[in-house]
């Protein structure tokens, strides 16, 4: 029996899973293909059916071919049903972050957008306007550099830069570590600026109260339809760079309709980080949605304690 998928009856001489020895497969159960990725660090030319490559330092060892050593009644093969959400680990960490934030009365917003929508400029403006009202801190996610955190720190509030390296999004684990480096924000406001990416961050709960998607008018009004996952996950959309509207053929109504089609519950504000247009409404949203003190009452309702 094939030790890889159980099909066929021919003996098999090796069992590492880079490829399937075709000789073993004569039955109909061949919905798998030969996944040889030759980008690996071994190169080989071989005829299938008898190849036996041993990748270096492979520790998973079943003797020389499990099939040959198979003892009736002592088969080790078994199927385990798991039924676990792939994101369950992230979600558990996110929930821990959320509890931690609620416990200190911190209202956290996860800002998501494509690169260049003006998230950081928006934050700098908002922080400048709001820092006397609430304690504020920022977690900055970027693949490289601390440029954004530097811009935020220049406003006088603490910021932690998380470099994701090759990663395309922040996850709850990173945010948990970043929280360790920030002072507790009693009744404060935490902005998490995600990696500029309109796809991947949608799937990862960080423990925030709300995702806020920023879309700029230079991007095209059909973005919500092209990237529905993000707009479906967000509770608020900020249509940024409204000061540029006179110079563009951007159909605001069509853009709002597209966003509402993807997410009928999304709230939308048109703003300009440059001129400040619409930002008062954003601040009012933060205060109302928010937060801050009401958040603690909500946590009591949820039984999480004050």
């Amino acid at each position, binding site marked *: 029996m094939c*030790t*890889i*998928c*159980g099909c066929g009856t021919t003996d098999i001489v090796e*069992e*590492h*899973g*880079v490829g399937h020895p075709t000789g073993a497969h004569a039955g109909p159960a061949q*919905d*798998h293909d030969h*996944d040889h*990725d030759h980008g*690996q660090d071994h190169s080989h030319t071989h005829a299938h059916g008898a190849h036996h490559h041993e990748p270096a330092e*492979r520790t*998973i060892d*079943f003797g020389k071919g*499990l099939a040959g050593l198979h003892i009736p009644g002592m*088969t*080790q*093969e*078994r*199927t*385990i*049903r*798991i*039924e*676990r*959400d*792939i*994101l*369950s*680990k*992230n979600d558990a960490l996110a929930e821990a972050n959320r509890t931690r934030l609620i416990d200190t009365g911190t209202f956290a917003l996860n800002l998501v957008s494509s690169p260049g929508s003006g998230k950081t400029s928006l934050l700098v403006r908002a922080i400048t306007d709001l820092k006397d009202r609430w304690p504020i801190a920022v977690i900055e996610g970027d693949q490289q550099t601390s440029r954004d955190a530097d811009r935020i720190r220049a406003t006088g509030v603490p910021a932690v830069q998380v470099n994701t390296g090759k*990663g*395309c*999004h922040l*996850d709850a684990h990173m945010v948990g570590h970043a929280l360790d480096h920030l002072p507790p924000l009693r009744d404060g406001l935490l902005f998490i600026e995600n990696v500029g990416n309109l*796809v*991947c*961050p*949608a*799937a*990862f709960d960080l423990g925030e109260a709300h995702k806020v998607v920023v879309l700029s008018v230079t991007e095209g009004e059909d973005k919500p*339809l092209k990237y*529905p*996952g993000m707009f*479906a996950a967000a509770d608020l959309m900020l249509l940024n760079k409204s000061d540029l509207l006179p110079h563009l053929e951007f159909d605001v109504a069509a853009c709002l309709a597209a966003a509402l*089609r*993807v997410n*009928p519950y999304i709230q939308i504000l048109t703003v300009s980080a440059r001129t400040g247009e619409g930002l008062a409404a954003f601040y009012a949203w933060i205060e109302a949605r928010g937060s801050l003190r009401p958040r603690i009452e909500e946590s009591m309702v949820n039984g999480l304690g004050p």
Partner: protein
Amino acid sequence: MHEISLVENVIALVEDERRKQPFSRVRMIRLTVGALGHAEPEALRFCFEAVTNGTIADGARLEIETIPGEGWCLLCRQTVPLAERFAACPSCGSAGVRMTAGGDLHVSEMEVE
């Protein structure tokens, strides 16, 4: 390409399972992926071998079961198929359809030895 992270999460779940009931090799991992969810099956397949390389799941076969999208049409008052997250009701054309299935993203089972 958050599918790389997703596969890393899958491996973490496999490791969890190994702590509960020891095994030394994973032969197959079956994922359930909703057609309207956050993961692209092709992208998962693309990175699976590279990400599992050198882990407990090294050499495992990946099987993906796709769950089609469904929604509840508020006008028709029935469950209708949904090809896209924001698609209109295929029966009445109304946009008032609430997605009810197709967002899945989980590990359903695996074969180990």
